[in-house]
């Protein structure tokens, strides 16, 4: 075999050093934080009647960013009253074309201030800036644009059914996609003529409060959007308030069940988007190198804090070894660290509490006999961090194959026949999403028909679009967000709603 002849140069031959990317941090100067934030009620920031505040910290450094009001029952009552008044006095009677103008304005303002929002999202939540910049913010703006378009076309969306708004929507959102979830909730509610009381998660309230400033800037009539901060108790006040007509919740299945019980018999409309334990299924004819990327993206995107994360990998046996080798190699190239560094692939775990939950479940995996693999990488000393983790030798009965870990932890199982893949994939109380990797179109369709999952991705994963409905089967919840389907839960119809 020929070898390249490198003739000696004048200078002594250099040994190739390993290339290290220099740090490339996104500047946080663009974000102007206040020391303390009140509640956004009736178009104004107001002091909480509860008098209580709590700190929100940067999970990558554990440093406090600001203090945020904790809304009590009295505050929620004021927020719901403001929303009710706004609904009856302005919003309900406003023509769809006028509502659309406001929603378009919000969308444009988000685009204009996208960098500020993205940096703040990464500071408060720990997600890599490349994700908040390239995914969360563009999608959030796209959601507002999309639903602005529907605002004056509801009669066409639901012909002969006379769609009407429900009234006040109480919305509670999680900490994994704070800004995006706020958009998923607020945009369809406004487009359909409802007003909103939104409660962001206690660990990530800041982008929602920045959104409140945008709501002020676009001169949305006061009270149409109210944003109240606090922990679980505040959320329960929102959903159980007697004058709320519609509840939309995204979060854990555990809390979802509590909410559903509490709302039984109240006549309130409810949609729940809960946990998941999605299977990413790789067949032996799959484009393996791209499947590796899809699997990595499926579980390590947003540190695995994704309800539709592909947390169970089902691999057809003939490609188990090559795929595992490729995954381990790829894992080694993941860059874990400062969320504001533009080259970071995996950021900080959202909170100490979540980190403990991940650690506990991973320990159970080891104890139950699964084999753990973690790449070598240096983690920062302060903050909440967890190494990207793979488990092999996992059985269906292990906790790590059944419970939602909500962290960067992948459980790998194998299968031999498509029927076995279907059986294993569906053998979970959840049913939010699934991924299918094969070069064969007919097999994609065959599998998709049999998956008990709200979203089935083929040869890709974690792809979102505002026009595509999203939601779960079984204990992953009910109701759809996004697309035409996302309007329905906010509307009343002749002959009753859904």
């Amino acid at each position, binding site marked *: 075999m020929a070898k390249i*002849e*490198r003739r000696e*140069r004048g*200078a002594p031959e250099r040994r190739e050093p390993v290339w*290290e990317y*220099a740090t490339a941090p996104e500047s946080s100067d663009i974000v102007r934080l206040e020391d303390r934030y009140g509640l956004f009620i009736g178009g104004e920031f107001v002091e909480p009647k509860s008098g209580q505040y709590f700190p929100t910290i940067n999970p990558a450094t554990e440093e406090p960013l600001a203090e945020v009001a904790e809304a009590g029952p009295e505050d929620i009552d004021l927020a719901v009253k403001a929303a009710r008044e706004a609904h009856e006095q302005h919003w309900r009677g406003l023509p769809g074309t006028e509502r659309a103008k406001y929603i378009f304005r919000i969308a444009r303002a988000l685009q204009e201030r996208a960098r500020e929002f993205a940096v703040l999202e990464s500071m408060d939540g720990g997600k890599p800036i490349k994700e908040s910049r390239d995914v969360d913010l563009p999608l959030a703006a796209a959601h507002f644009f999309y639903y602005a378009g529907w605002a004056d076309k509801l009669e066409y969306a639901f012909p002969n059914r006379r769609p009407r708004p429900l009234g006040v929507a109480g919305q509670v959102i999680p900490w994994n996609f704070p800004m995006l979830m706020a958009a998923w909730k607020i945009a369809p509610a406004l487009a359909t003529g409802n007003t909103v009381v939104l409660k962001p998660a206690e660990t990530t309230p800041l982008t929602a409060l920045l959104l409140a400033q945008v709501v002020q800037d676009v001169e949305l009539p006061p009270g149409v959007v109210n944003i109240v901060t606090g922990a679980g108790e505040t959320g329960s006040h929102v959903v159980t308030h007697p004058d709320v007509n519609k509840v939309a919740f995204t979060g854990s299945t555990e809390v979802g069940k509590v909410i559903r019980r509490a709302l039984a018999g109240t006549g309130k409309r409810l949609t729940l988007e809960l946990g998941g334990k999605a299977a990413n299924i790789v067949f032996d004819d799959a484009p393996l*190198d*791209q499947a590796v990327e899809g699997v990595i993206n499926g579980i390590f995107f947003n540190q695995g804090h994704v309800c539709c994360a592909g947390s169970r990998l089902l691999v057809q046996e003939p490609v188990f070894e090559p795929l595992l*080798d490729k995954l381990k190699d790829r894992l080694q190239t993941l860059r874990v660290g400062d969320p504001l560094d533009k*080259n970071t692939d995996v950021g900080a775990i959202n909170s100490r509490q979540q980190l403990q939950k991940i650690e506990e479940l991973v320990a159970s995996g080891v104890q139950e006999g699964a084999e753990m693999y973690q790449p070598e990488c240096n983690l920062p000393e302060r903050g909440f961090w967890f190494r990207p983790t793979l488990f092999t030798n996992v059985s269906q009965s292990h906790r790590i194959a059944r419970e939602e870990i909500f962290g960067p932890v992948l459980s790998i199982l194998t299968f031999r026949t498509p029927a076995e893949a279907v059986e294993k994939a569906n053998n979970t109380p959840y049913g939010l999403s699934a991924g299918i990797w094969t070069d064969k179109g007919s097999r994609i369709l065959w599998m998709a028909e049999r998956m008990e999952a709200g979203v089935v991705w083929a040869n890709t994963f974690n792809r979102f679009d505002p026009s595509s409905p999203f939601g779960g089967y079984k204990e992953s919840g009910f109701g759809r967000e996004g697309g035409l389907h996302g309007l329905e839960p906010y509307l009343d119809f002749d002959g009753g709603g859904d």
Partner: protein
Amino acid sequence: MSQAAEIERRHPTPVRFTSKEAARLVSRAAAVDAVGLEERAASLSKRSIKRDSKLWALDLAIRSMDLTTLEGSDTVGKIVAMCAKAVRPNPVDPSVPSVAAVCIYPHLVPVAAGQLKDTGVNVASVAGGFPSGLGPLDARLREVREVVDLGADEIDIVLNRSLFLGGQYSQAFEELAAAREAAGDTHLKVILETGELGSYDRIRQASVLAMAAGADFIKTSTGKIQPAATLPAALCMMEAAREFFHETGRRVGVKVAGGIRQSKQAIQYLVLVYETLGPEWMTPDLFRIGASTLLNDVLMQIDKERTGRYQSPDYYTID
């Protein structure tokens, strides 16, 4: 990985394939998903390379460069000037390294060989009926042998896309294997002309074919066909080279060529190499960039990194 492959990996020996085996390898080559591949290439192109790592990348971009001119209008004088630039890209800054090779048409090889003697810069020549690679086989092989005799250190030939796209893998393989033999110990790069292959599956298969035939490098493009090098096409070839290494233990180099004019593009390709093939490939022995106008932009960027200011293009020689 099988045990046999593991042993191969630790004791790499050149693997000789028969044309039948090669044809089988090609038809079994991994499927490529276009959406996923392009997404990965796009996400890697967003890596932010700053300061020291940027300077290091710019330095490597020069050391990996095949400074190229493949024009009918090339003259002896132009080649002489280009050779001088290849050895000392920046006459006022001796810390800037030489390029890897000068890449030219066969009739100018003696000129370049004379100019580059004992400089460490290689003479690379296109051959084998470049840029079509479709002439009579014996004429193409004779050209390869003659270019070697004229003093070329490296030879860039073109895959017979007509045979390959027609599914005649054995014949396409035999042609490449014959060229490999004709080139002897001279460094052989096989151009796949990815812009003519029509799909990433085909690029992956062509990569496998050329590597099995003994190519030292697989190269994207002649520069005469559009599209020339693209990030996803290069990534597809790198994934093939990674797989080939895992299966045979032999490292095959990747050369990107055509349309790479700016430092930013060069750095994007280096990121692809780094994150796909790893640090072992970050050397002129396993990675090359074929380019004509890229060099000046790299020189300008180096000065900019060092001084914080852009200099006028007039400070950089144009040959």
